[in-house]
């Protein structure tokens, strides 16, 4: 290793030498414990060279969106920084990036990048060869020509023999769409159960809260299952901190006393995963029996709360209040009743309910964590209902915001600045014309698509659920993973996924690294990252738009996914000029020219960018000069346009203000025009999906792998063989599975299983032990973090680790949580990541710290493995 | 073990310095004798020590830079005095072999060597006791270093000079060794107790040391036992090279070297530097 470093130090930083050196590195290092970055340049030497700061994409689906800049010297990035384009103030803050973004050069220039196309040694065209060797076969480097020929001929063969619906793809892309499309899978992975309840209960007002600056008017802010420090890095936690500093009290509800809670929370309220509904019902009971709910608000703006205010045609007995009081079912949903399920102390339930009922204005906000549960819709119903019971809607500081998460967390209101479209012809998958998110209409019968949780089962057993049509047969012969991420790792039921990958006739994957999906494929195609592409736009929070540029030439033989599609299309006799006619540059220009920004007076949008004829000529594209607010050069140089904000400015937005001011004139897009505490439409829709039943009002039902299933007999309190509840949450080390291979991040965040001392002691587990976590679906091993911060009986493990499944033991040593999360379709096609029951035991084997693991470099990529 | 180089350095250096000290003392006590073997061994040990110290460095070729901060660094001073001692010890050995008649020069070198050596041991003690390593702080480190210097130095000198010292009163050796190790033990007891009462770094050290209790017990058995065993032969009027008495001296030497070496190993093994959260 030392030798390598020395060698690197001797080299001048030229791209050619860099690539040579990293090839040598890959060959010589089975890379134990060495940095995974190849930018081991001599710092002094690098500093001596003039570099250029270029805006680099930080494009991951991390829940944040920040400005990332790279200091580029001769195609190599020697340093990064974040937003310094304007002075930083709380009202008009810089868009500062997180640990993940700051280590991205270790990703782009990683020694483990895929360099060349390769095929599995024992793969044969036509039948897949020795399919059981997928995941452990040797790799053989091949030319792009050979790779693309194979992919095209396999695609042709499968289509012609079995039909397009025998190809399973997460995203199809224009060429595959033009070739007849593919069976796809769909689901509400991120949003959990929110989409349908929002559609029916509040008229699709997803994610919204009041404006960011209005948060500071709140006296109380409830964060339900929100940990922006990890899952919405960038400014959201900072924005909340401004509200705290302005005097807001924070209550955080979560099974885990998170890193966000430790900054913001005046009070932490622990709740068992998947039992939030019970907690909310207990709170509702307290509010109703103490007459603390806002009856006027409920009467005027909601339907379904009590028998006197039911939507048309609904059974008056099916009202929320009587359900809570137990009028008809004989079970009052008292705080004591709730506590038995949710584990929250009854006194705490009362005081919490009291506090949200009497503190005004209050912001009641939930992410989707509690909705990423089996029948998570019941939580969504209960959350909105209890929020509305407090009447905190449509006023400064008052907001009931559902699904306020990801990069809009802590923001509300319209997008103030946005990019234009690329003007490519619209391309849809003929087999599944709807968006894969949030899923198909279950009442429609013109789609073929598999919910994520059933995908691997469908491959193996030839059957999937199709809404009102019930079970449909399918015959999947090919897995198509070009431009679609790390599906094997990130779909639920990973162990069954491996079985599915080993069953089909052909698997092709494009990837940056040898991810699990690539590892279990027959042909792997090296793809470029955004740093190697022509540039583009990134949006996140409503106040800014990022314009990133190309940082470096494609690494080795890596190619854009679009290019792969075009080349495959050509081989199938399709004309790229038809299915993807615009060049990447032209698409970029079209987006640029179409950028708009809200007027100063907030009345509409105006053109953002001034583009001159000379700019157009320099870009080598077709277009017309235009006048806008800033020049193209300035935009490119800064890499961002952010709308300046200040206290009391014209952009301040209060969600539902118009509805509250005049509900008759400004009805919601719900059936009744009001908030629907009772929605038969919602219940019918969920029932139509075919996996669960849901009541039209918030009711608590026991769910698959919920708390009650940790008991063999809940009434007698006899524990089952899976007595612990696991949540699999977004982890600070990575963005889903992206960036999990970065040594700096692996060192900083060691991916341990969080367990309470009581649960550890009961199992003889001590500090520094390795444990085995088993569910009905698989087992992983991990080091433990024994902490009082996690509710007893519950565990948490960050999702997205790069699966390393040992074929003999069946154990994943990386702790990929989808080994534990089964394929358990529920509700509207929700992935129930947070209802998972497990057992934990001490594991006697050893496990090296993740950051010391060898990189995934195979001989076919110039490595030694 | 990463600190093996330091262990070898400090142990050999102290042994050599101790030998030089007893050589000086013996020249005062027993006129007209030469201790060539001891002189060469002391020089050899000091060379081994200095070489070992170089092995500890990440940049041994730049070792001389270590003399750049004599103004404030006890490590600089230790290097200086250790280096000087080695020079003197080597010069002294050479003089014994090649210019045995230069007795004034010899005496001067002996006295300088002893003085410089004892200052070197003091510097060593200083540099360890001023580090942010609670387990090393306090009088114990000095006592330990000087006890090793005296005990191992005396014994090595004695063994290598048995022939020359055959017919003289040697009880000074036995008593010096015994006194040194008794003092060493007497200081160690309150020190061990205080360690457990210290800050978290000291307690972390205490925990490591309590895990090494077998080794530590062995050290004290060897050190104290060796010193007691030495009493009998050193109280004898004369000792034959192959007699029972000399066997006891050899045994004592073996015990003391092993015991003090183990002790020094424990000294480094128990090291926990103060850091954030561990003070």
């Amino acid at each position: 290793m030392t030798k390598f470093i020395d060698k690197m130090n001797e080299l001048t930083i030229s791209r050619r030498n860099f690539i040579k050196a990293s090839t040598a590195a890959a060959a010589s290092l089975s890379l134990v414990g060495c940095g995974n970055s190849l930018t081991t340049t001599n710092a002094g030497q690098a500093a001596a060279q003039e570099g250029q700061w270029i805006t680099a994409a930080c494009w991951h689906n991390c829940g944040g969106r920040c400005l990332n800049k790279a200091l580029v010297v001769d195609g190599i990035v020697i340093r990064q920084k974040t937003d310094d384009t304007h002075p930083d103030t709380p009202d008009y803050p810089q868009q500062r990036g997180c640990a993940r973004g700051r280590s991205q050069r270790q990703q782009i220039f990683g020694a483990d990048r895929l360099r060349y196309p390769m095929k599995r040694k024992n793969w044969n065209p036509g039948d897949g060869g020795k399919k059981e060797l997928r995941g452990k076969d040797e790799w053989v480097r091949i030319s792009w020509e050979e790779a693309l020929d194979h992919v095209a001929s396999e695609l042709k063969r499968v289509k012609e023999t079995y039909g397009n619906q025998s190809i399973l793809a997460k995203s199809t892309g224009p060429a595959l769409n033009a070739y007849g499309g593919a069976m796809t899978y769909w689901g509400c992975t991120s949003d959990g159960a929110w989409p349908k309840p929002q559609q029916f209960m509040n008229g699709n007002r997803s994610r919204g809260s009041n404006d960011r600056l209005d948060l500071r008017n709140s006296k109380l802010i409830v964060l339900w299952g929100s940990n922006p420090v990890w899952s919405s890095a960038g400014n959201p936690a900072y924005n909340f901190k401004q509200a705290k500093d302005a005097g807001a009290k924070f209550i955080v509800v979560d099974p885990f006393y998170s890193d966000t809670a430790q900054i913001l929370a005046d009070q932490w309220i622990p709740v068992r995963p998947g039992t939030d509904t019970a907690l909310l019902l207990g709170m509702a009971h307290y509010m109703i029996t103490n007459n603390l709910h806002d009856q006027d608000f409920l009467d005027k703006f909601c339907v379904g709360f009590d028998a006197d205010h039911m939507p048309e045609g609904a059974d008056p007995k099916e009202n929320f209040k009587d359900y809570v009081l137990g009028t008809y079912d004989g079970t009052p949903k008292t705080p004591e009743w709730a506590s038995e399920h949710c584990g929250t102390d009854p006194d705490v339930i009362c005081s919490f309910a009291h506090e949200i009922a009497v503190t005004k204005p209050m912001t009641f906000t939930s992410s989707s964590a509690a909705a990423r549960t089996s029948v998570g819709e019941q939580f969504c119903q209960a959350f909105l209902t209890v929020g509305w019971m407090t009447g905190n809607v449509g006023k400064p500081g008052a907001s009931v915001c559902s699904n306020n998460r990801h990069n809009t967390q802590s923001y509300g209101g319209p997008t103030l600045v946005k990019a234009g479209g690329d003007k490519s012809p619209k391309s849809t998958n003929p087999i599944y014309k709807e968006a894969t998110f949030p899923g198909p209409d279950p009442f429609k019968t013109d789609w073929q698509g598999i919910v994520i949780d059933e995908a691997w089962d469908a491959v193996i057993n030839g059957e999937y659920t199709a809404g009102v049509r019930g079970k449909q047969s399918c015959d999947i012969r090919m897995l198509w993973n070009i431009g679609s991420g790390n599906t094997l790792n990130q779909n639920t039921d990973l162990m069954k996924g491996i079985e599915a990958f080993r069953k089909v006739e052909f698997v092709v994957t494009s990837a940056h690294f040898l991810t699990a999906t690539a590892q279990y494929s027959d042909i792997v195609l090296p793809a470029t990252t955004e740093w190697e592409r022509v540039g583009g736009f990134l949006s996140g929070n409503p106040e800014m738009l990022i314009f990133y540029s190309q940082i470096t030439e494609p690494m080795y033989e890596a190619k854009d996914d679009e290019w792969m599609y075009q080349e495959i299309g050509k081989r199938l006799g399709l004309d790229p000029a038809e299915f993807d006619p615009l060049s990447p540059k032209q698409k970029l220009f079209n987006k640029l020219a179409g950028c708009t920004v809200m007027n100063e007076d907030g009345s509409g949008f105006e053109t953002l960018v001034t583009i001159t004829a000379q700019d157009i000529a320099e870009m080598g594209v077709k277009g017309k000069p235009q006048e806008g607010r800033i020049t193209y050069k300035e935009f490119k140089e800064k890499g961002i346009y952010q709308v300046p904000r200040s206290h009391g400015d014209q952009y301040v937005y209060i969600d539902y203000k118009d509805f509250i001011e005049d509900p008759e004139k400004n009805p919601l897009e719900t059936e009744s025009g009001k908030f629907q505490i009772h929605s038969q439409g919602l219940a019918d829709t969920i029932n139509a999906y075919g996996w669960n039943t849901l009541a039209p009002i918030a009711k608590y039902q026991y769910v698959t792998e919920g708390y009650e299933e940790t008991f063999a007999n809940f009434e007698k309190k006899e524990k089952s063989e899976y007595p612990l509840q696991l949540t699999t949450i977004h982890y600070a080390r990575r963005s889903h599975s992206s960036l999990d291979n970065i040594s700096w991040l692996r060192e900083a965040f060691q991916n341990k299983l969080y367990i309470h001392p009581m649960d550890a002691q009961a199992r003889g587990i001590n500090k520094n032990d390795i444990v085995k976590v088993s569910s009905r679906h698989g087992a992983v091993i991990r080091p433990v973090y024994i902490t009082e911060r996690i509710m007893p009986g519950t565990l948490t493990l960050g999702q997205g680790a790069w699966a390393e499944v040992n074929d003999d033991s069946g154990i994943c040593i990386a702790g990929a949580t989808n080994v534990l999360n089964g394929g358990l379709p529920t509700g509207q096609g929700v992935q129930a990541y947070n209802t998972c029951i497990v057992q934990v035991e001490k594991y006697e084997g050893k496990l090296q710290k993740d950051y010391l693991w060898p990189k995934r470099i195979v001989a076919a990529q110039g490595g030694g493995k | 073990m990463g600190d093996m180089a330091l262990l070898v350095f400090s142990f050999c250096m102290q042994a050599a310095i101790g030998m030089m000290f007893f050589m000086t003392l013996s020249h005062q006590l027993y006129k007209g004798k030469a201790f060539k073997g001891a002189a060469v061994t002391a020089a050899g040990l000091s060379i081994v020590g200095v070489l070992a110290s170089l092995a500890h460095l990440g940049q041994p070729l730049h070792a001389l830079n270590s003399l750049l901060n004599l103004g404030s660094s006890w490590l600089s001073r230790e290097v200086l005095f250790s280096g000087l001692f080695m020079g003197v010890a080597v010069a002294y050995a050479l003089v014994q072999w090649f210019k045995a008649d230069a007795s004034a020069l010899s005496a001067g070198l002996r006295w300088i060597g002893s003085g410089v050596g004892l200052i070197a041991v003091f510097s060593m003690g200083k540099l360890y006791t001023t580090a942010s390593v609670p387990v090393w702080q306090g009088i114990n480190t000095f006592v330990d270093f000087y006890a090793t210097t005296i005990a191992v130095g005396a014994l090595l000198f004695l063994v290598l000079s048995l022939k020359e010292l055959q017919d003289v009163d040697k009880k000074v050796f036995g008593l010096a060794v015994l006194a040194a190790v008794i003092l060493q033990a007497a200081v160690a007891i309150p020190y061990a107790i205080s360690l457990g009462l210290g800050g978290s770094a000291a307690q972390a050290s205490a925990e490591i040391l309590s895990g090494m209790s077998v080794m530590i017990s062995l050290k004290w058995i060897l050190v104290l036992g060796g010193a007691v065993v030495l009493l009998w032969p050193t109280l004898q009027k004369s000792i034959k090279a192959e007699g029972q008495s000399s066997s006891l001296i050899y045994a004592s030497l073996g015990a003391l070297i092993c015991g003090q070496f183990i002790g020094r190993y424990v000294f480094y093994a128990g090291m926990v530097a103060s850091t954030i959260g561990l003070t």
Partner: protein
Amino acid sequence: MAQYGFYFDMTACGGCKTCQIACNDRNDLKPGVLFRKVKGFEGGKFPMPWIYYLSISCNHCQEPKCVEGCPTQAMHKLDNGIVAHDKEKCIGCRYCTWSCPYGHPQFIEETGRVNKCDMCKDLVEEGENPACVDSCTMRAIHWGDLEELRAIYGAEAVSDLPVLPNSSKTTPSVLIKPKSVALLKDFMLKED
């Protein structure tokens, strides 16, 4: 003599380690070596646990033990108070790793020398902030003239905490606004 220093607002720190990674990036550090690091300390009992994070680097002490003990003068104090390290002089004796009570300097096997935070002195000389300061997503790390920092934040700030060695040993140039739980003596180091 001027003295630059850091101010750290613990009440705002989420333990996201952006500063740590920004420092890794700035100094091109290999895993296993950290100049700025974020350490968590926790305690309490469910349902009242507590945790706090401390982001800390070299404290550029006014009486630095590393400088005093360094045999080569590789560790030295600049006129602006930065404790700098001259790698040309360093012989890799590691004594500074023993003498710093904060455990800051680190021996780098590959170079055979010690290395440490230099407060991004080249950036500072160009009028910029150290990399960690401008990276913080919670704006919890500030940098500047220590006396100015003290004038702005001093009322709420301390240089001593139960997890830190007594500041009288080295007079660190760091001010910390502690969470109240950071004053508790019964803490445990959080595992990463």
